[in-house]
């Protein structure tokens, strides 16, 4: 046995002996094994941490005030105002801040202050044992897809894909209604309300009804998790993807990655969120639309597909519960997604 792995496993064994034995979750396709953290009650504490990019106190003030107006209390983590170049502190500092919040029984939910890049650098440094014994909501999107995917693959614990502190407007009086509504949807998700979304139908949607656990997130992040222990298992699930700032060829290549790693063949349904495509002015036109790029990969399958779902790096980015069973219903006149 190598020295390193021996030390790691003995530490894990030591930690485990102080905790009740956890049921095994082996990358399961059994929906009944998925668990949701408890809904939040008035007075519960939400921790704010920055596992990826750096952010300063001033930038989270609006979120703090808003969340307090929902009746929750806030605990601000040590990574807020910390900076190590692009990161909200060194890997050790970011891991430590998140670890404390995962382990603190008083904290009932953890909101990532912003995305950026960095979650993958700390995911393997975290000890998830206490979190698994007492799950709590982890909230965020973009780079936070690493955590959604990791929890989904390894523990079957639900999490919230939504806007983060840096999307809360400073001036609510000038905010667009959709901006306010999407932020309020985080509170709905936390309060235990069963979510329901009505979406404007896109003419290229594929009709159908699908029941399955919802998973997904940022497509590029999902691609870079392929082959790792945080890689999602999509069989029997409803997958949603979104991305921003990628060239069309790159989006195409990422959908080939999904297909060639077997992630599209056994889906129950596919939800395509916002894709902000970067234009390459020197290059020739790619010759295919986003819809073409997606539909050609899944020609052989009959599951429902919905485009333009309000999730992504955009104002209409509603809170979605990853790891929770939903029903997707797409028809020519109506598209709904609801928690069941």
């Amino acid at each position: 046995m190598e020295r390193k792995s021996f030390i790691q496993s003995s530490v894990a064994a030591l930690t485990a002996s102080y905790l009740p034995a956890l049921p095994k979750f082996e990358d399961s396709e059994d929906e009944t094994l998925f668990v949701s953290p408890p809904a939040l009650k008035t007075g519960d504490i939400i921790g704010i941490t920055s596992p990826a990019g750096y952010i300063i106190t001033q930038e989270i003030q609006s979120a703090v005030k808003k969340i307090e107006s929902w009746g929750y209390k806030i605990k601000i983590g040590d990574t807020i105002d910390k900076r190590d170049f692009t990161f909200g502190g060194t890997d050790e500092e970011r891991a430590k801040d998140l670890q404390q919040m995962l382990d603190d029984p008083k904290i009932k939910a953890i909101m990532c202050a912003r995305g950026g890049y960095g979650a993958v650098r700390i995911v393997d440094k975290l000890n998830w044992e206490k979190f698994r014994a007492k799950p709590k909501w982890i909230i965020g999107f973009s780079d936070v897809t690493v955590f959604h995917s990791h929890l989904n693959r390894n523990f079957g614990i639900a999490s919230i894909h939504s806007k983060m502190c840096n999307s809360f407007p400073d001036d609510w009086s000038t905010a667009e209604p959709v901006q306010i509504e999407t932020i309020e949807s985080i509170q709905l998700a936390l309060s235990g309300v069963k979510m329901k979304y009505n979406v404007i139908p896109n003419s290229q949607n594929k009709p159908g009804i699908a029941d399955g656990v919802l998973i997904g997130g940022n497509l590029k992040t999902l691609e870079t998790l392929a082959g790792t222990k945080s890689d999602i298992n999509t069989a029997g699930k409803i997958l949603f993807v979104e991305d921003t700032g990628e060239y069309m060829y790159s989006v195409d290549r990422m959908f080939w990655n999904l297909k060639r790693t077997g992630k599209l063949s056994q889906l129950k349904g596919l939800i395509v969120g916002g894709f902000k495509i970067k234009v390459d002015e020197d290059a020739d036109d790619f010759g295919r639309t986003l819809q073409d790029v997606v539909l050609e990969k899944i020609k052989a399958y009959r599951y429902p597909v919905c485009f333009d779902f309000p999730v992504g790096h955009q104002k209409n980015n509603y809170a979605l519960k990853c790891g929770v069973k939903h029903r997707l219903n797409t028809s020519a006149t109506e598209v709904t997604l609801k928690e069941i």
Partner: protein
Amino acid sequence: MIKVPPYLQKGDTIGLVCPAGLMPVERVSECIRVINEDWGFTTKVGTTVGRQYHYFSGTDEERLEDFQHMLDDDNVKAILCARGGYGISRIIDKIDFTRFKENPKWIIGFSDVTVLHSHIYRNYNISTLHAPMANAFNEDGFKNEYVQSLRHALEGKKIKYQVKQHEFNRKGEGIGELIGGNLALLAHLVGSDSDLKTKGRIFFIEDVGEYLYNIDRMLYQLKRSGKLDKLAGLIVGGFTDMKDTERPFGQTVHEIIRDAVEEYDYPVCFDFPVSHEKENYALKIGVGYKLKVGKNKVTLEE
């Protein structure tokens, strides 16, 4: 055991195709002239050379057909991809390698062609050539040692590459089959049927025009998918035109790579001439090499 396609004899035919991005005929003509006149081979120019379908050198069907035709033509002894770009991922699963498996021939290129290298090595254990493409012949490029190394590789000459020392190099000696290519493509292939097995191999990587954070993220992916821990050696090629975000990453690309493999003890060499620039030696994928990283020099030999 790796199957090595027959080396080329005078008069043998090299097929030229564009399996990915479009390439105007005039950018290929010097390459054709040099292969015919100077190298003593003949060329067969595929239908995708000079063709255009938007971004690509033809529709998926056209690119597939041209490549397939060259693969199945017994008179064609090597296939030189005229350029990379993007597009092989779109046709790789439709290529029929049945005849190729029986009659292996050299497949040549880099960048997007990494998909072919990786797929063929993983599934058929046949050697391919990571080497300069048509554009490298232009502007007298055919005279440089890098384009010449392609000729030597095709002729079956065993070459020993000797390169300069780099301050981040990790000394040591490693022996193993040589594999690798463009980092973004290798990362993109992880988990697919074309994914590389790296254990016990000498692994080389290069990339161009990527954001530093993305290089870091791809290395984390390779690491977390178990591709960096059991190497015989690591060859870091050119990482050119790197981009940084508004909030700087805080490390150079060399530092990022050095840190990613810090915990292992195999030899590592930086700035090896395999890149999107002129410095791009021909490397035989799947063939056994010895990498020696010493105090003053680095050698790579078959």
